[in-house]
């Protein structure tokens, strides 16, 4: 399909060549006839016509290639704010497309119409204040209206997350994402500290904070549909950026500076599969801030579940502490009792082999 675009452009280039070769022939014939003080050659008319041809062919190519590519654009946004920004995008796009065609058309048509003609004299027209005021004010008004509609949406998007939002922590590292959920009991993420990172505790969960006891990690991102989700975004090594293209979510991950983004997904994975007619479709979380050789492949799969499915999935997950009972040693004495309840009875923490536990954790992350 897009080969047609290629074909069109080849036509373009051929035409350009034709114009020029014609002009070369003309310039040979005409040389010397014109007033030699004017830097003119026989190609002048051809170049003028060239702009007209460029306008016509260019407009056709632009319109056609847009229509041809449209099916491959991202489908309608799968998040509440994304629908708003999409609408605004296409409205703005409409305005600028109009301006784009109008101004380019004027430019090329004027170039064609007012090409050099013998005995013609250009109009001495240095200034017209009314015109200038008009085309200062009109863009200013258009800009102002765009700014204010944009501001409204921006303020909504960046407002405080609702209190009932599901909190999920996403941590970028070279080259992947760690996901941590607040757990089944307290819906609070425990503290985290980069100095506590080791081969098993890859996020650096701080077990001196009791909120972290029920936290569980995952290597895919599950989101509930229709429920506000607050992503708490972190980075371990260099800048990364969380990008959920279908949900129109993007926020940088900065080492040493937690960032956040909250949104409400409106289409589950199943919804999108049905819409696209692709049973194997999956959302992705990609990285959009250059972070090294694996940047382009730094993605995890995202599942948007119906709220009840999400709840069921969460309920199935085992806290990190349950999977790695030897981290009980990191828990301060006074909290040991609380932490103990997450430790499976058959595997007493103190005696567990740490390498075995480590392997178990890795396996759980790869599940």
């Amino acid at each position, binding site marked *: 399909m*897009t*080969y047609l*675009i290629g074909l069109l*452009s080849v036509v373009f280039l051929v035409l*350009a060549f034709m114009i*020029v070769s014609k*002009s070369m022939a003309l310039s040979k014939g005409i040389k010397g006839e014109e007033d030699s003080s004017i830097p003119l*050659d026989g190609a002048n008319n051809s170049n*003028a016509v060239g*702009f007209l041809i460029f306008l016509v062919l260019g407009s056709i190519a632009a319109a056609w290639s*847009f229509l041809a590519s449209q099916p491959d*654009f991202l489908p309608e946004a799968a998040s509440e704010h994304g629908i708003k*920004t999409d609408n605004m*995008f296409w409205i703005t796009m409409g305005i*600028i497309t109009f301006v784009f065609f109008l101004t380019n058309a*004027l430019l*090329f048509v*004027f170039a064609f119409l*007012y*090409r050099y*003609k013998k005995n013609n004299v*250009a*109009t*001495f027209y*240095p200034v*017209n204040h009314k*015109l*200038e005021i008009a085309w200062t004010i009109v863009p200013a008004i258009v800009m102002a209206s*765009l*700014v204010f509609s944009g501001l409204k949406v*921006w303020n909504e998007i*960046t407002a405080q997350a609702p209190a009932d939002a599901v909190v999920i922590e996403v941590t970028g590292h070279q080259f992947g994402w760690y996901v941590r959920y607040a757990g089944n009991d307290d819906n609070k993420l425990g503290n985290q500290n*980069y*100095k506590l990172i080791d081969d098993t505790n890859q996020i650096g969960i701080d077990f001196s904070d009791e909120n972290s006891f029920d936290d569980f990690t995952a290597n895919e991102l599950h989101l509930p549909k229709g429920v506000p989700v607050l992503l708490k*975004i972190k980075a*371990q*090594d*260099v*800048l990364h950026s969380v990008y959920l*293209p279908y949900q*129109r979510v*993007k*926020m*940088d991950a900065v*080492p*040493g*500076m937690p*960032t*956040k983004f909250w949104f409400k997904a409106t289409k589950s994975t199943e919804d999108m599969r049905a819409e696209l007619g692709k049973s194997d479709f*999956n959302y*992705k979380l990609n990285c*959009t*801030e*250059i*972070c*090294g050789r694996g*940047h*382009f*492949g730094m*993605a995890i799969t995202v599942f948007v579940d119906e709220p009840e499915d999400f709840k069921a999935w969460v309920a199935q997950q085992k806290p990190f502490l349950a999977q790695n009972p030897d981290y009980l040693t990191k828990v301060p004495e006074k909290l040991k009792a609380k932490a103990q309840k997450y430790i499976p009875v058959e595997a007493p923490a103190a005696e567990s082999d740490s390498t075995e536990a480590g392997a178990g954790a890795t396996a759980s992350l790869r599940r």
Partner: protein
Amino acid sequence: MATATLHANEAHAHGHDHEHEHHEPGFIRKYIFSEDHKTIAKQYLITGIIWAFFGGALSIIFRLQLGFPDLNLDWLKPVLGEWIVEGKLEKEFYLALVTMHGTIMVFFVLTAGLSGTFSNFLIPLQIGARDMASGFLNMLSYWFFFLSSVIMFTSLFLETGPASGGWVIYPPLSALPQAMPGSGLGMTMWLMSMTFFIVSSLLGGINYICTVINLRTRGMSFTKLPLTIWAFFFTAVLGLLSFPVLLSAALLLIFDRSFGTSFYLSEIYIGGEALPNVGGSAILYQHLFWFLGHPEVYIVLLPALGITSEVIATNARKPIFGYRAMIGSMMGITVLAFIVWAHHMFVTGMNPFLGSVFMLLTLIIAVPSAVKAFNYITTLWKGNIIFTPGMLFSIGLVSLFISGGVTGIILGNSALDINLHDTYFVVAHFHLVMGAASFFGLLAGVYHWFPKMFGRMMNKTLGYIHFWLTFAGVYSVFFPMHYIGIAGFPRRYYSFTALANNAQDSFADLNAFISIAAIITFSAQAIFAFNFFYSIFKGKKATQNPWNSTTLEWTTPVIVGHGNWPGEIPAVYRWPYDYSKPGAAVDFIPQNVPFSATPESNLPEETEEIENEKEIDGLLDTQNSVYSH
């Protein structure tokens, strides 16, 4: 009596000759360590052209990867060596190519090559000065640039590769050698090179500003300056105020890299160890960088717009429409350029309120830009247009400036930027509006002032072919790129295999098409290179004023000597755009023609100005005394 006068004249002429003899330099002082602004301009231009081909070639290599991911690149092994692994481009080298392409194009081609060339060449010639305020600083400026070029070029041959963290070199990626090999010695050399580059820019900028303020010929008030000079002046002001900030950003980064400070680093775990740095802010770097980075866009663009103003007015045979509005809008752009930088950072986690402020300011800057575009179009209206190659590229610039500019309205809107940030939509936007448009300005300038630079004409027919191929080519490359951006393709991706919904397949054809168009466009530049270098030696001899232009540079001899005018510097009596004036016999009246000589075409207010002419003429001695020491 008569003898005495003659004698006096001879003495005077002798005095001049003496001065010239005094300055007549040997080969090295004339062509290499020259202090003559024209030679320095040509040095900048030729260095810039060489860099442009280099930067372009790098982009062709990564376009091969993007357009034809399955292509076997073993044939590039003789050039790229170890960077080709099993017929594939090394992933890190891909990032190095992207980084170097950006750095070279933005700084070495479009800053040094454009502003360095034309500010140097045109400021003294168009304002009527014998040279720059300081020829020595000017020479230093070029040689610092040369040194910077050598260092950057050398870094390409390092085993660990040149800097690879993107042309914006955001830390911590650029600060930690363990994050990627390019952040090792390559990054150190990048920083060294840029430090010298900044020194070069500052030396140049100070000179341009001093020269425009102090060395204008008699009668050349600010309101009679050609728009080129206004543009160069504002460009220099922008550079002078913003480059030092980049220097400080670079210095702090050097400190973080080499001396263990934590300006940009905090809480980092990399390569299996936790680093001790705490308290720094990676966002601080981005603020400092974009405080230069955004004005840099206008540093690149304004000279191109200035050149276009001049070329369009000359070849439409019409005064530029809204001369004062043009100055005003450039002034507006210059001021606003300093307070919009954070629109590059909407999704960095910056305070959202700050985001709304910068969004407001950003969309305001669209207004003066729109005014400029409308004024160019109106200048063509009812003109008598002669399509010289320079004119074609100028019209092309206006078209690209509009097409690339309108999408800025989308990206400047923080709510819309969320989805489009760091996608190909951004790449398409800035390549059109600042890359291609400025490049067209550079080419327009070369075609237009080549006769003044080398005393010969470039071949026009080759110029037409070059234009049409480049114009169609640039649109074919960057227009469809918007679609890929709307489809959510992130930039700086080696391949698109990790995107949802097998997105890489849906745009495989389009990516291949873009790559082919890029190769054709790049190849077409060979026509220009041939035309340029051939015409320097074998071009048709130029006449004194080949485009029938009004500005002062065309009053100099065809081959301009040291000091620019063999006799007195001409005085200026009128604005630079008296084209097709009603009543005048010819369709242009040069700036040095007094109103008293053109009673048939004077406007009422201009007739009044005849009285001031004596006053202007009376300044001759003062002006000569400036140059006498």
